């Protein structure tokens, strides 16, 4: 289990919109996307990884916050945050 904040990313092609990731997520209400998944592009400070583990098709990934600063692809996709 990591205690550093993480940002989740979802491989949308494999996602089956089952919502299992939201069901095990201990975050307060609203840590979701409109596509029945946990929030992406928003830091998760709990980082329990239950969402990644429960996913039936293993299509949730994460970057640690410290790694994001060095990830040009992520910054390019999320310019408003960086």
């Amino acid at each position, binding site marked *: 289990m990591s205690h550093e904040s993480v940002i989740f990313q979802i491989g949308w092609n494999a996602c*089956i*919109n*089952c*919502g*299992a990731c*939201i*069901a*095990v997520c*201990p975050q*307060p*209400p*609203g840590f*979701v996307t409109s596509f*029945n998944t946990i929030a992406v592009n928003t830091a998760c400070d709990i980082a329990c990884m*239950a969402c990644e*583990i*429960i*996913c*039936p*098709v*293993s299509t949730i990934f994460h970057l640690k916050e410290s790694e994001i600063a060095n990830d040009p692809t992520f910054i390019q996709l999320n310019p408003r945050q960086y």
Partner: protein
Amino acid sequence: MCPIKYDIVVIGSGPGGSTTARYAAKHGLRVLLIDKRQELGAPIQCSGAISGNALENVEIIADDEFIQEKIYGFGIYNEVGIKTTIDYRTLKPDEYSKSKKPLGFVVDRRRFDRYLMTMAERENVEVSLKSEGLNYTPEKNGTCTLTIRRFNEEIKINTKVIVGADGLQSQVGKWAGLNTHIKLTELASCLQFVVDGVKTDGLLEIITGDKWAPGGYAWIFPKGNGYAEIGLGVTRTLAKQNAQRYLDQFMKESFFKDRFLNARILEIQGGGVPLTAPLNIQYADNLILVGDAARHVNPITGGGIHTAMASGKIAGEFLAELIKSDKEPTKENLKEYQERWLNAMGNKMWQLYQVKHNIFNTKDVLLRDEMLYNTMSNYFSPESEYKKI
């Protein structure tokens, strides 16, 4: 444009939500039913099995519009394929047969959920799709203001009670600070394929065994028109890999591998199934939860349609009584909903949870497999004490 005052607003138009709305409206309440989706029932997260009793209990006729296959019993298998057959066509031929009545059905969840919504609308429930609940604020007069987003427009609605029927991923319960969190040890991670080319015979087939589905089971359900569902659910803390890999393994390596040789996949569906105890507290000021949102799911079978509709009926009738008696919808007054539900089915669900808990907390895998197989075989027998749950 929505009028702004309702007795109750139901968030989520699955079987639990639409049944709550229908019974509340039938007993005279002004009801709004909202759902964020554009098509109910989708994406499908369920195998769609439901008993005939469950439909009768909430006065729904088994209509061809949503029935895909009639079911007459069960086939329970252990890990190596030893089978217990519980076929009501032979156990109770005077009651159940093709010419008489079936034991249950597999339904098309898209059509079923839409049908249930239609039945609610015919009782004068107002329905709004593409409408998502955002938050609520209690008011001094005992009501509350609910904010929803309908398409891209934010609308404020005054209501006495919000019914959270927003499923497994419920956010409504979290709004009120209820402890809705499901532990990783108690949520089955499920995946199923709808397939062509796999024969079935009117039975729901359940395959137990740690090798195929640790902390859950695999299933083969008839789906009508020669189709079938092949799926499984696993508890990830007991499983070495994800549900997708277990399903691949089940189809390629199990004692059914020859039966699956010509399976052609038509759809891929999945979901989380809470194999957990019902929520300890399912109510708050101005708010109650029904169905999956309250974890009203049978923790042995994972079945949730029957339990959601049954709790919807209890909720709808109770809210009508409460509001017509002019009692304020405080948590103290809404507590009776949970008490009625416990008396009707909740206490048995708690017992089932203990059974499930004892099985999956058994460390010896062989013993655990045997316990699950025996429990499943007994559960579906005509003598089962739990058959109406």
